[in-house]
């Protein structure tokens, strides 16, 4: 394990150093005093590498990441996990807007709330199934244009503000994958391209191991296994706009 003190270190030098250490075979890296450095973990292909971050990392963390695990002990900013291919991101605080944009594999867990446009155009193919779990609430456009993968919203920590668990325009244009929301969903918050259902046995089978792993990573046993409360959202059609330009 190595520690890197990132106090006042520019993001370019920091990321070069991280890549160098991984190349040398270091498996555990702890970054101290991070404050807004961008692009941490971006495009890194490596297995069994863990990067722990103390402080608030900057924009576009874990973009195009392929394998490593990143653990953020504080809040994260916007654009985490953009087009991430594999690996795991665990955020112990809140996260910003546009998480997991076009995410195509791996896992992204956030303990608290997330912002707007989370899980937009997540996609899945064969055994590549990206999984995102948000512990708190989500802003508008959650899972917009979603094409694959599993997106889960738990709506915990209800004391922090009076915002609803789910924002408007959820799953608009969704044509693949599945969204699970712990709670009832008002119809007028959903896009016209989806329907919502109660969970069946196969859903529980999918959810249980994911939620167990989420609790394990967060180091806390949350009361989130009340499957009768959950709502499942899936697309009506794989091609909702198939006729749009057909005269």
């Amino acid at each position, binding site marked *: 394990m190595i520690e890197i003190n990132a106090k006042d270190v520019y993001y370019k030098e920091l990321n070069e150093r991280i890549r160098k250490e991984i190349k040398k075979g270091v498996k555990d890296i702890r970054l101290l005093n991070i*404050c*807004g450095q961008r692009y941490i973990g971006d495009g890194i292909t490596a297995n069994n590498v863990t990067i722990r971050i103390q402080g608030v*990392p900057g924009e576009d963390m874990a973009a195009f990441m392929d394998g490593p695990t990143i653990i953020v002990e504080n*809040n994260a*900013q916007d654009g985490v996990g953009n087009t991430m291919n594999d690996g795991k991101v665990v955020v112990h605080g809140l996260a910003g*807007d546009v998480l997991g944009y076009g995410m195509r594999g791996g896992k992204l867990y956030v303990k608290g709330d997330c912002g*707007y446009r989370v899980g937009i155009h997540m996609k899945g193919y064969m055994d590549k199934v990206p999984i995102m779990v948000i512990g708190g609430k989500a*802003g*508008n*456009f959650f899972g917009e244009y979603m094409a694959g993968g599993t997106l889960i919203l738990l709506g915990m920590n209800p004391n922090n503000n009076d915002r609803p668990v789910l924002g408007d325009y959820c799953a608009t244009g969704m044509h693949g994958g599945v969204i699970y929301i712990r709670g009832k969903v008002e119809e007028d918050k959903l896009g016209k391209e989806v329907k919502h259902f109660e969970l069946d046995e196969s859903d529980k089978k999918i959810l249980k191991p994911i939620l167990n792993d989420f609790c394990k990573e967060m180091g806390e046993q949350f009361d989130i296994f009340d499957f009768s409360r959950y709502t499942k959202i899936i697309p009506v059609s794989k091609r909702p706009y198939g006729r749009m330009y057909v005269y």
Partner: protein
Amino acid sequence: MENFGLFTEPWVKSPYRERDSAACGLIGIINKDKKRISGSVIKKAISNQHDRGNGLGGGFAAYGIYPQYKDLYALHLMYDNHKDVKDTEDILENCVQIHHQETIPHATTDVIIDHPHFKRYFVEPNPEAMQRGINPDDYMVSTVMEINTKAKGAFVVSSGKNMGAFKGVGFPEDIADFFQLDQYEGYIWTAHNRFPTNTPGWWGGAHPFTLLDKSVVHNGEISSYGINKRYLDTHGYICTLMTDTEVVTYLVDFLHRKNKLSYEDTFSALAPHFWKDIDRLDEEERLKFTLLRSVYAGAALNGPFAFLYAFNGGLIGINDRVKLRPLIVGKKGNTVYMSSEEASIREICPDAEDCYAPHAGDAVIVYLDEE
């Protein structure tokens, strides 16, 4: 002396001779107890967002910095050429009584070499005009418009009491060094790091945009600029700065000061609720928001934005109705921070509490505590 080229060459003049891609960044600080904070603090905070800008604009607004002249309007002026000073001062002397004037102190730095000439004047409106019963704020607004449109090579950077704006072409940390902001202390500060997209990176086009004590720093673009500009034009506000953000400053002045709308209603008119959301409200609220949206339709802002609006009594942050730009709020004791990025707040206040992102279109309004 040759013209700096403030007006004759209003295109890109980067001191760094390079371009990069990014987005604007902003941060504001307010201490509700009016404890004054050094300019070096806001400089440190906005430097954390260095990569959101590209060196084509940096600027600051500072409140509470001129306690010795707090009852006078502080006019910050930008001149293309020393020769333009005389003509402008002739106009000024006709309109106002100048109690004190000086060159705005600035440092010679390695980076900001070419720059316009800056002067400040502490003034009060002409007493004769005041005897005719003209509102002093209205009078100063027309004085500012007069200089911006008629004085050749001169432009008013700020015009409020006990406040001032400092801005130019360069990264904000370099502009802070140029104006020696570590020599100032204020209880409200805003800062901006510019990445101009549609309009030129020139000294007048850097943020903040001000009128009287009101200032705006903005990340985004006001795509309704044309409509807003024409609407303002019919009410006597003339846009001269070639940048969309200018309209926000004038719209708030028009709605809040002239039309006497509360700040809550003013910002609701700027970022009106969607009709589908208005339909969900109870009757009284539905009527109120329908009227706000209809009567002030020309003031509605479209396009992506997050902006900070500061004035002598407080600081307001808001983003557009679909949240196409980031805004984070945090606090520590009686100090509140609003920023494009949380890290920028942590840079100057590592233990800030309750950091959160406000809901799209909801103004966060923080007033100074009453004395």
